[in-house]
């Protein structure tokens, strides 16, 4: 409690070194690192401060509460489903209910313009991120195979692979083996052995509902306590609604809403970690007399080139029970089709993960694809235990028209709701077609009969991309705004291309790198 203000926050009336917006995957990493460097840090989070033993339960429906649930609009020919499947809210953000699959990007991901002639090159390379991958894999820690067949890192991972895998995940391995495709146990931010008081995973299968034994990494249980120990002040239930810009174009701080009132927090630097939808939205909402298109937006690229991964699901019926509710949802993978094939049939590619399902996830696929109801619905449901699912993570190339914009409608805070516009491009569809076909072949080779193919998407990326040229990007290779020298972005909105790996390890590695850079800039007196 602050005695002057009667409010629960101690630094409200002071200019702190750094305000971080968003306490999800990336914000928590930044908080830990800046706090440990001795900077004064306020971490502002719109959602609640979850407490695992009080708030998490083993139930799909109930745990949708961890989603971002404020009003959002969708548009485009492939208007995505958002909600629980796309983003989280509250301390820990998306990591509370992510499935913790943590492969790295491939070295080629950073240079697809040069290699494949599409998209853009990143202003940084795999080698820039590699040391952060390594530190992070040790720190959280990642369980994975001794030898990983693909990409720039072949193992061994710090913790042993999560084995044995469930029937659901054996299906992928058996199918791949029959087809002569390499497959592997996935690298997971889930413990295969005890770590600092956290027990190994008990295979209860509810990773997407929040882990109760704390076997799964989340920033809620890992980085946040360490950030608080380092003196970071966390304010939850506070929605940042505006960045304040001074006449010299430096950022003065932020305003935020708490219980219907607006408060102001000054800072020497601001770093946005609010997600690839909320960060562009916040910059657009911060438009003022001199920045009519929003802050950090002299390039006009704020909110542009928003990407999702294609995430089509292929579900097959097997003659024997699969029991898809058992085991960590995703345990096995193949990244064999990640890069461009030599026949030129598509550019870039996809990963395929074996993906368990609880009843609601399964029934959503059934209703979305068949639109069936009544007796037929019950007949399919009765055989729930006989179905296995593969999910692709498909690369989606950046397009200007896929965007985050502001609508006239207001959300629950009275702020303009974001519109998420998304349509696949031609190559994106080729990647999907090929990925879905490969899933079918794998499932059939394993003895299944494919019954449902369900379009879906995952992982929000882009919208404030990094680049060396201030005319077509929002931040530089460190995440620093081209327009405002004390404004940084460290969430997945800075992504230039999507890759086809689950993004969070990379996002946290990049966030750590940006935090290190900020510490150095403070040390040199540049912030």
């Amino acid at each position, binding site marked *: 409690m602050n005695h002057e203000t009667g409010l629960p926050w101690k630094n409200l009336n002071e200019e702190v070194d750094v305000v971080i917006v968003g306490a999800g995957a990336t914000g928590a990493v930044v908080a830990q690192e800046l706090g440990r460097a001795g900077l004064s840090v306020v971490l502002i989070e719109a959602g609640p401060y979850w407490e695992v*033993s*009080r708030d*998490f*339960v*083993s*139930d799909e*429906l*109930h745990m*949708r509460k961890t*989603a971002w*649930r*404020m*009003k*959002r*609009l*969708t*548009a485009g020919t492939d*208007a995505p489903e*958002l*909600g629980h499947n796309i983003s989280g809210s509250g301390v820990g953000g998306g990591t509370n209910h992510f499935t913790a699959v943590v492969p790295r990007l491939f070295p080629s991901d950073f240079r697809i313009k040069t290699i494949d002639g599409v998209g853009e090159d990143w202003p940084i390379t795999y080698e820039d991120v590699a040391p952060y991958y390594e530190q992070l894999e040790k720190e959280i820690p990642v369980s994975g195979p001794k030898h990983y067949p693909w990409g720039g890192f072949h193992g061994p991972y710090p913790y042993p692979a999560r084995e*044995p*895998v469930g*029937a659901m995940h*054996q299906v992928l391995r058996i199918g791949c083996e029959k087809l002569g495709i390499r497959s592997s146990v996935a690298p997971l931010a889930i413990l295969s052995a005890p770590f600092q008081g956290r027990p190994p995973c*008990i*295979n*209860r*299968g*509810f990773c997407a509902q929040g882990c*109760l*034994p704390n076997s799964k990494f989340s920033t809620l249980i890992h980085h946040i306590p360490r950030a608080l120990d380092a003196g970071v002040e966390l304010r939850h239930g506070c929605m940042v609604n505006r960045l304040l810009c001074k006449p010299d174009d430096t950022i003065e701080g932020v305003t935020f809403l708490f219980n219907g009132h607006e408060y102001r927090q000054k800072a020497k630097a601001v770093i946005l970690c609010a997600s690839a939808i909320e960060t562009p939205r916040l910059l657009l909402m911060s438009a003022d007399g001199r920045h009519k298109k929003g802050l950090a937006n002299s390039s006009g690229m704020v909110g542009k080139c928003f990407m999702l991964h294609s995430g089509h699901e292929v579900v097959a*019926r097997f*003659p*024997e*029970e699969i*029991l898809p*509710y*058992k*085991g960590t949802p995703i345990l096995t993978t193949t990244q064999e089709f990640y890069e461009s094939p030599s026949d030129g049939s598509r550019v870039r590619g996809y990963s395929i993960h074996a993906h368990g399902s*609880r*009843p*609601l996830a399964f*029934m*959503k696929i059934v*209703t979305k694809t068949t*639109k069936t*109801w*009544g*007796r037929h*619905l*019950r007949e399919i*449901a*009765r*055989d*729930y*235990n*006989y179905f296995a699912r593969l999910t692709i993570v498909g690369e989606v190339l950046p397009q200007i028209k896929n965007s985050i914009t502001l*609508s006239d409608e207001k*959300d629950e805070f009275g702020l303009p709701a974001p519109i*998420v516009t998304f349509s696949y491009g031609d190559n994106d569809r080729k990647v999907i077609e090929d990925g879905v076909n490969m899933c079918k072949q794998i499932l059939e080779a394993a003895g299944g009969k494919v019954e449902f193919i369900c379009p879906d998407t995952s992982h929000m990326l882009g919208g404030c991309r990094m680049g060396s040229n201030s005319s077509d990007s929002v931040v530089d290779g460190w995440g620093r705004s081209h327009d405002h020298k004390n404004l940084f972005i460290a969430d997945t909105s800075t992504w230039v291309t999507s890759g086809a790996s689950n993004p969070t390890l990379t996002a946290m590695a990049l966030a750590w790198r940006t935090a290190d850079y900020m510490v150095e800039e403070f040390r040199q007196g540049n912030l």
Partner: protein
Amino acid sequence: MTVSTIYPDYDVMKEKAKWDENTRHVVEGRLKAPGMPRFFSPQELTLLKSALHRIVDEEDKGIIARVAGQIDDHLAEKRGQGYRQVGVAEEEALFRLGLTLLDTTAMQAYEESFLQLTAQQKDEILGQVQRGEVIWKEIKPQDFFNKLLRTAVDFFFSQPEIWSEIGYGGPAYPRGYYRIEYGLKDPWEARLDRKLVAKRAEAGLGPGPIRRVDR
């Protein structure tokens, strides 16, 4: 219920003593009879229940009343996911207007309330709404139907009896699972009924031969 389970002896609630307390509280809460509706009017709630019986093909009035009551709670407490496509109405409006329009459509077709129709007539009307064959001014009939179907499925398949019916292991903390590989089951998981599976296999339906663990 017109479709019979292949796990007739399985009751997921038998294991509830093994669940953590918060989960038990949430799941047991689903089994409570609903109170007075807070979002729907009594008439809307009756229409919702009537439609739900058909959508999930379930005759049991108790389960349907709970599902309807829990959808009412969900809407009253604004527990939705917040997003929607541009041009689609908010879920509150879809439910409220949709149910009334469903009844109006029934009146126009059969000169009777939806509630009075035979099961076949109800399915006929619901099918027309799903296919967008009726003209509603305020909302698109398909938008209402999709919302109704997706919501019905979410809440219906969150009922413990239905978990038992489909052989879903249910909550699993703190116990977890030990035997997760192909062909293995932990002792508390659902066991197939040999005869029922054989009967279905003969008719060319679904599951194949029964495995060792279930013998």
